[in-house]
């Protein structure tokens, strides 16, 4: 039985590097106290890290190898508010919105494990709302840039690769946020309905729902925030 390998009753697992060696060499499951759902989400996120890593790398290569000057993101993403140009302000607000959504998600996971059905669902809905706000602001940003003449093959300010890097990186990230919002809504509905209290079977895999589903959803959502931290640093601030 799969579950029996979980038992650690009476056995004390070593910590530190010795623990890493023991877990990996145990000829069973390597991740001892982590369910498969959680381990698989982590492994998926690892592969996604490589995808975004490659995007940022290709952006770095394009930016380093071009003869033309790179457009100054500080000016490109400035907004005119009340007659003054404020550099990068929209991106800063988007950053705060996404960080806030991560905060509400972390608390949703916490309330989930306290089996507080309503607070979990409401905090997840708040997370989804903040995520949707982020996507809308990104839509605004894209519209503004496209109206200013930014295309994947050219832009008014300098190196043509600016447009292609921008649309690819932020577009892929925005897609991740959108998918996250959809799944947040689905998971919030399940939490609200009490699926995780009674262990109702899911429509797709038929596995029983537990509050761990909220944590796995949370892992994905925090990852989306994490990717934005890197995009913010390398694309907008560099």
């Amino acid at each position: 039985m799969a579950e029996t390998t979980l038992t650690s009753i009476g056995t004390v697992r070593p910590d530190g590097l010795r623990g890493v060696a023991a877990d990996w060499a145990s000829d069973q499951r390597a991740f001892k106290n982590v369910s498969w759902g959680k381990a698989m989400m982590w492994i998926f996120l690892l592969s996604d890290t490589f995808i975004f890593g490659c995007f940022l790398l290709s952006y770095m290569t394009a930016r380093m190898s071009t003869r033309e000057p790179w457009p100054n993101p500080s000016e490109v993403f400035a907004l005119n508010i009340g007659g003054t140009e404020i550099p990068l302000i929209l991106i800063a607000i988007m950053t705060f919105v996404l960080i806030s959504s991560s905060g509400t998600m972390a608390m949703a996971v916490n309330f989930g494990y306290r089996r507080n059905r309503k607070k979990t669902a409401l905090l997840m809905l708040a997370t989804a709302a903040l995520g949707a706000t982020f996507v809308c602001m990104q839509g605004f940003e894209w519209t503004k840039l496209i109206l200013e003449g930014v295309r994947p093959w050219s832009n008014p300010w300098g190196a043509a690769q600016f447009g292609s890097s921008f649309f690819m990186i932020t577009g892929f990230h925005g897609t991740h946020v959108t998918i996250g919002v959809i799944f947040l809504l689905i998971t919030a509905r399940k939490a609200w309905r009490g699926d995780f209290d009674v262990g109702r079977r899911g429509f797709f895999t038929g596995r029983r729902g537990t509050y761990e589903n909220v944590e796995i959803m949370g892992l994905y959502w925090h990852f989306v925030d994490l990717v934005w931290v890197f995009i913010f640093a390398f694309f907008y601030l560099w």
Partner: protein
Amino acid sequence: MAEAVVHGHDQVAATHAASATAIAQTDAHQEHPIKLYLVVWGWLFILSTGSYLVDYFGLQGLLRWSLIIAFMLLKAGLIVAVFMHMAWERLALAYAIIVPPVLVLVFVTMMVLESNYTLLTRLTFFGHGP
């Protein structure tokens, strides 16, 4: 024979009990006070403001890059360690997830060399920028 069967039953029952405990154990996840998340949230706001101010005040050169990287790594660390609970996972998982992305740095080195070479050939054959 009957005895053996009974014994077997006992064993099955024992295994069941054990696996039930095991499930209960996996279910025994981390519960932390809400305050912890609020504190981390506050720090993420402070660090983001810091990295925004780097741009706002127009810091340039090495200072700018080191500050951007420092704020970025601190934010990433807080998110992974606390929000994603990596700080409380066993090292077998933490190493399996966190070590491979470090290898991306090797790729970065390769591409830095490559793009320097590309730039050199472009400057040699096309001259300086338009």
